[in-house]
């Protein structure tokens, strides 16, 4: 068999249905074989970065379905592969399993600076989980199977396979054999430690039983191991409130009485105060990123820390643990839940304190939410997202971009569906939303998907409207247009004396853009048009674009300034 056939055979064996790809010289043979076979649904982005984010959307959204799929993106060598870089680095930061297959120039000319040659393996190595370059047709199938294994085992991550053109065209030796069913990758250095050890678990349970003011952290690992329901059960059984990282959101219903909402830089008062005053932190599947912890030497000073994490290199990296549990979150919760020694304390005083903080939070937002508009009667993002949340009863899939609208969506959407929130967290890549939403919709066609972008981020991958148009992917696109790179503007307001360097931004006429792509469009400037526009999007079969004209002076609060401690939390805005 030819290398190209083996590429597709391996992808098919791995259950791949969609290929997000953009052709070019060095990958043409694979595309040609794809055309012959007609087995895959081919999705063409309008930029390779779009392909990487679509692959992410597919992987992330399908993770919780009966048939998880791994997103596959494909590009040609040189510029094609380099355009994938941002999306792959983003997947690496957020532990998303995707496979990137890049064409490479033929082995005979590698390292001669051949036309469209880039050192893809060299570039990708530090920004993905693993890289491969098969050098013979016989290696292709094995490599792809191993790549899927590595991407989806332990802590997830992107894997890159760079295939020289001559290897794609090579025929295997006549005695070539490969049995995917009996194939086990030989990786002596690849550790995967899913089961928690008994003694550490017992110590953890003892600490939980003794604690008076415990708080649980729900990170991406809870989503990745489909452990949301179990986390909720554990919280209910022990009366321990749960704070979420950006990626932990939607693991549990957002309005659950024990949910504290998001913690960290733009976290809620109740979450951040609980962290500050806790005597015990039980953290599941997260990595104590600086947006979560703020100043490390002031972080949770009175708390012991139990850290459950599949990646041992995250343990004790930023925050010293009292008990480190290197294991899968699902399995750990499962064992802990059935441990007869686990005590169920009412923790009334602690929960009362949480309730009081929750009220403070609500009160601080009440006026704005009720008014719904800011300066010059322009819309507040929080009122738009709240209305969206109410109308959809929090059940839809939300894919934000990066900026103020993202933090506001995280805070004001009342998530009810498990695994329904796909954001770029670790990298914070503007432009991710539209392509990621396309991937999510393909993974979960029966659910409604909202892509929420700012005017800045939307223009970064605006070209993917072409993909929406061509495939009629039913994504409801919301542009929260405040005429600024709002999140940066917010920092300028708060920390740079209101000098708005490089943040005012003009937008094209989105109505004309929508028209050019044949996508229905509504513009919303008044508060009482919001609901109607959202209803229009809900009722309309197929993609549509809603543009909301927003108040640029809206500030996302609360906020812990970068490098600050939890004591520095800004709750109300006096600056503007």
């Amino acid at each position, binding site marked *: 068999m030819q290398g190209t056939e083996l590429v597709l055979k391996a992808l098919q064996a791995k259950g791949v249905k969609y290929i997000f790809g953009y052709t070019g010289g060095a990958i043409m043979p694979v595309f040609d074989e794809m055309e012959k076979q007609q087995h895959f649904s081919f999705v063409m982005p309008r930029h390779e970065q779009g392909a990487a984010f679509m692959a992410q959307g597919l992987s992330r959204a399908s993770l919780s379905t009966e048939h998880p799929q791994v997103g596959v993106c494909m590009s040609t060598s040189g510029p094609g592969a380099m355009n994938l870089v941002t999306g792959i680095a983003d997947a690496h930061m957020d532990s998303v399993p995707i496979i990137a297959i890049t064409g490479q120039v033929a082995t005979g000319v590698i390292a001669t600076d051949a036309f469209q040659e880039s050192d893809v393996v060299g570039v990708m190595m*530090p920004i993905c989980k693993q*890289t491969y370059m098969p050098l013979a047709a016989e290696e292709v199938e094995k490599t792809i199977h191993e790549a899927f294994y590595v991407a989806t085992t332990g802590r997830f991550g992107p894997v890159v396979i760079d295939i020289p053109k001559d290897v794609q065209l090579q025929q295997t030796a006549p005695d070539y054999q490969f049995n995917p069913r009996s194939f086990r990758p030989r*990786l002596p*250095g690849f550790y995967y430690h899913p089961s928690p050890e008994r003694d550490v678990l017992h110590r953890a349970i003892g600490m939980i039983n003794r604690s008076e003011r415990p708080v649980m952290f729900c990170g991406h690992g809870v989503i990745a191991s489909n452990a949301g329901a179990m986390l909720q059960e554990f919280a209910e059984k022990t009366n321990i409130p749960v704070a979420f990282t950006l990626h932990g959101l939607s693991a549990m219903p957002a309005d659950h009485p024990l949910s504290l909402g998001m913690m960290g830089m733009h976290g809620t008062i109740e979450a951040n105060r609980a962290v500050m005053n806790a005597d015990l932190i039980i953290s599941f599947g997260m990595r104590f990123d600086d947006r979560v912890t703020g100043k490390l030497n002031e972080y949770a000073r009175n708390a012991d820390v139990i850290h459950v994490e599949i990646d*041992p290199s995250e343990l004790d990296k930023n925050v010293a643990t009292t008990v480190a549990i290197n294991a899968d979150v699902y399995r750990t919760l499962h064992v802990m839940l059935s441990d007869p020694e686990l005590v169920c304390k009412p923790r009334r005083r602690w929960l009362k304190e949480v309730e009081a903080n929750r009220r403070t939070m609500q009160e601080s937002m009440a006026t704005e939410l009720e008014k719904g508009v800011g300066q010059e009667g322009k819309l507040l993002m929080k009122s738009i997202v709240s209305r969206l949340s109410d109308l959809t009863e929090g059940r839809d899939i939300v894919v934000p971009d990066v900026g103020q609208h993202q933090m506001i969506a995280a805070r004001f959407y009342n998530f009810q569906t498990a695994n329904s929130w796909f954001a770029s967290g670790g990298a914070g890549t503007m432009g991710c939303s539209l392509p990621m939403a396309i991937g999510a919709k393909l993974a979960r066609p029966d659910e409604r998907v909202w892509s929420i972008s700012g005017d800045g981020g939307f223009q970064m991958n605006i070209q993917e409207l072409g993909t929406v148009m061509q495939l009629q992917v039913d994504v409801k696109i919301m542009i929260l247009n405040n005429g600024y790179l709002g999140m940066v503007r917010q920092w300028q307001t708060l920390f740079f004396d209101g000098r708005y360097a490089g943040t005012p931004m003009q937008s094209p006429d989105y109505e004309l853009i929508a028209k050019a792509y044949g996508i229905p469009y509504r513009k919303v400037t008044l508060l009482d048009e919001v609901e109607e526009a959202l209803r229009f999007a809900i009722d309309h079969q197929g993609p549509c674009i809603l543009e909301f004209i927003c108040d640029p002076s809206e500030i996302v609060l609360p906020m812990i300034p970068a490098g600050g401690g939890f004591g520095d939390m800004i709750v109300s805005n006096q600056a503007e």
Partner: protein
Amino acid sequence: MTAKPMKRRAILAFVQDKPGTLNKISSLVRRKMYNVDTLTVCKAKVPGVSRMTITLREDDEAKVTQVLRQVEKFTEVIRAKELERDHSYWREVAIVKFELEEKQFKKLQQRYQLEVLDRQPHDIWIVQIAGPTDRLDGFLQDLGSEHLIEIARTGVTALEK
């Protein structure tokens, strides 16, 4: 004011003998800004496996644990551990070319057990010296930099007792 020199550590890693392994380790060192002094690689007893010895300066135990975990995280790294100073031998070799009068040379040779590789006219010597790092450093100090012409050092390799 000069900072107190940090404690020297040695990490031994068994890694798969594959292209890219060394690249990954060295880029990790750069990315995480570890204070690495030496890094040596050689074949291990098992075919397809290399042993890598890394020496670095670090006082903070937690940081050393982080280095170990980050190194172990690579698929290509089979095992990594820290070598205790008292339970292992750390050695390196240097080839040194210098200019020195014979009388002084003899003194040094006796003290440091130099193996003479070559003697050239005008009091030029090429010698080999092996041993712990501080012995090599001691020799170089006694020799004096004004006499030194060129030096090649292997970096540390280590073995547990």
